[in-house]
């Protein structure tokens, strides 16, 4: 599907989902209160930061391999909340990045978070750095850092590929408390096997709303839930139609989604 006109009905569904999200965002910004359920892994963040404080060892944050896009930015948003907590306790921070464009933003996010926490003087410009955009060169650098610094807590959020297990096992072996979340579903099993807490699926996108309780984000989250209900309904209707011989694949509703 290159253009909406290739299959208008499908494109309208995408537009409809977008509209729903925008609508709930606007109502939330106008003061409507929304609820978000507990996400277990995220409650562990304070625990992890606390542990790092006790041990006096640094906290590692890796925003994944992807560039300047929604996934990497979401990781940085989550990190900015963690940094604000960590800044209160004076934890040392290490954030290696794998993309130069994302690195520039990361550097700003970290600096701003220290300022927002009221500790601009604690910000260490060497704590955020660009390491490599080559997957396994990056992995070798991060793994080496984990072992050398014996990190106390490790937060892996973003787009990860095969290197996920290198980070997670290295952290496991130095006894770090690890919280991970990724949009790469194929890497989730390895995080689950080696990390203390794993954020699964779109809990990743819900995380910033959960931690910040920002109305915009909560509104968006509610909208996303409505969208998922719509998709579920579409799947149900399609399935039922396919099961009725008189309707089948030729039925107009099914054709709407046939590219």
């Amino acid at each position, binding site marked *: 599907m290159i253009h909406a006109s290739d299959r208008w009905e499908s494109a309208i569904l995408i537009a409809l989902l977008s509209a729903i999200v925008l609508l709930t965002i606007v109502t939330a910004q106008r003061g409507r209160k929304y609820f978000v359920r507990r996400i277990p892994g995220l409650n562990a963040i304070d625990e992890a930061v606390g542990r790092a404080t006790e041990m006096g060892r640094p906290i590692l944050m890796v925003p994944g391999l992807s560039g300047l896009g929604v996934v990497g930015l979401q990781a940085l948003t989550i990190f900015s909340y963690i940094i604000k907590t960590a800044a209160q306790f004076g934890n040392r921070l290490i954030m290696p990045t794998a993309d130069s464009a994302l690195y520039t933003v990361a550097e700003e996010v970290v600096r701003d978070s220290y300022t927002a926490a009221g500790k601009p003087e604690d910000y260490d410009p060497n704590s955020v750095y660009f390491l490599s955009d080559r*997957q*396994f060169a990056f992995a070798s650098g991060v793994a080496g850092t984990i072992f050398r610094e014996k990190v106390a807590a490790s937060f892996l959020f973003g787009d990860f590929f095969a290197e996920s297990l290198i980070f997670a096992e290295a952290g496991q*072996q130095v006894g770090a408390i690890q919280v991970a979340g990724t949009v790469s579903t*194929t890497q989730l099993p390895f995080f689950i096997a080696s990390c203390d807490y794993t954020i699964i699926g779109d809990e990743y996108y819900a995380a910033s709303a959960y931690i910040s309780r920002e109305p915009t984000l909560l509104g968006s989250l509610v909208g996303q839930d409505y969208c998922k209900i719509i998709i579920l309904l579409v799947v149900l209707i399609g399935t039922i139609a396919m099961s009725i011989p008189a309707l089948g694949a030729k039925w107009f509703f099914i054709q709407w989604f046939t590219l």
Partner: protein
Amino acid sequence: MSSFAENLQNIDRRYLYLTLLLIVVIGLLVPIPLPLAVGPQARGVYDAIEKADPRKLAIVSTLWSASTQGENRPQTRVIIEHLMRRKLKFALIAFGDPQSTILAYEVADELAPKYGYKYGRDWINFGFRADIAGTLKGMVRNIEETLKQDTKERKPLHQFPIMKGIRNFDDVGFIAEVSASANYVSWLGLVAGSTDAPFCYAPTSVMAPELYTYIDSGQIAGMLFGIKGAAEYERMLGIKGFTTRAITPVSLTLILLFVLIGLGNYGMFASRRQGGKA
């Protein structure tokens, strides 16, 4: 005091690692004859090449880099070797990673003297293209116009004898893609409809499970399942290459994993029964 059973559930990882390394080395040095059944998917690739029309061109598309060469290189090798045995004309084309054209070229270049294959007459390298969808869409209409020149000699395609009478996918008799990613979408979506050539796939074993749907539906004629697929293929070709050697340690390492998981669980239950900490 820690009992034997408790130790079993906490074996120092260094012992695990050294055992693994040892098993790999021994497995590579001492070929232990382990049973290997040739599966229907590998046979599908074999039959497709056996049945391919020698007047038509075979296309081997590659999309892999050094990081997955453990599986993809032997796959590329067995397919090219079989094509050469059958004296089929073939072309290499690469997508995804610029490295993949160099790596695949090397494999073919190495085998060529053995079968008397001459570049430009019996085989050709179309080279790397960044935009797979655009390239394939163009090739469906006209291969020469889309690709323009080869990569080795950088000459227009029509100057090569191999390209005589080859216009589009109607003149292609066999397509295989050796890949570390999910590229089949482009091939099946954009090309499959405009050719009778069977489409075969040689993915890494991580990617392979995704493809069964298409094998089931007949869109993919055959598949080499990672390194195991290459080993099965070597067996059908009757050659003893790297994968025939490598398949022993592959099996041994997985058996090691089973044993370790067993020991860990045994240790956990045994120490629980003894009232130890689980």
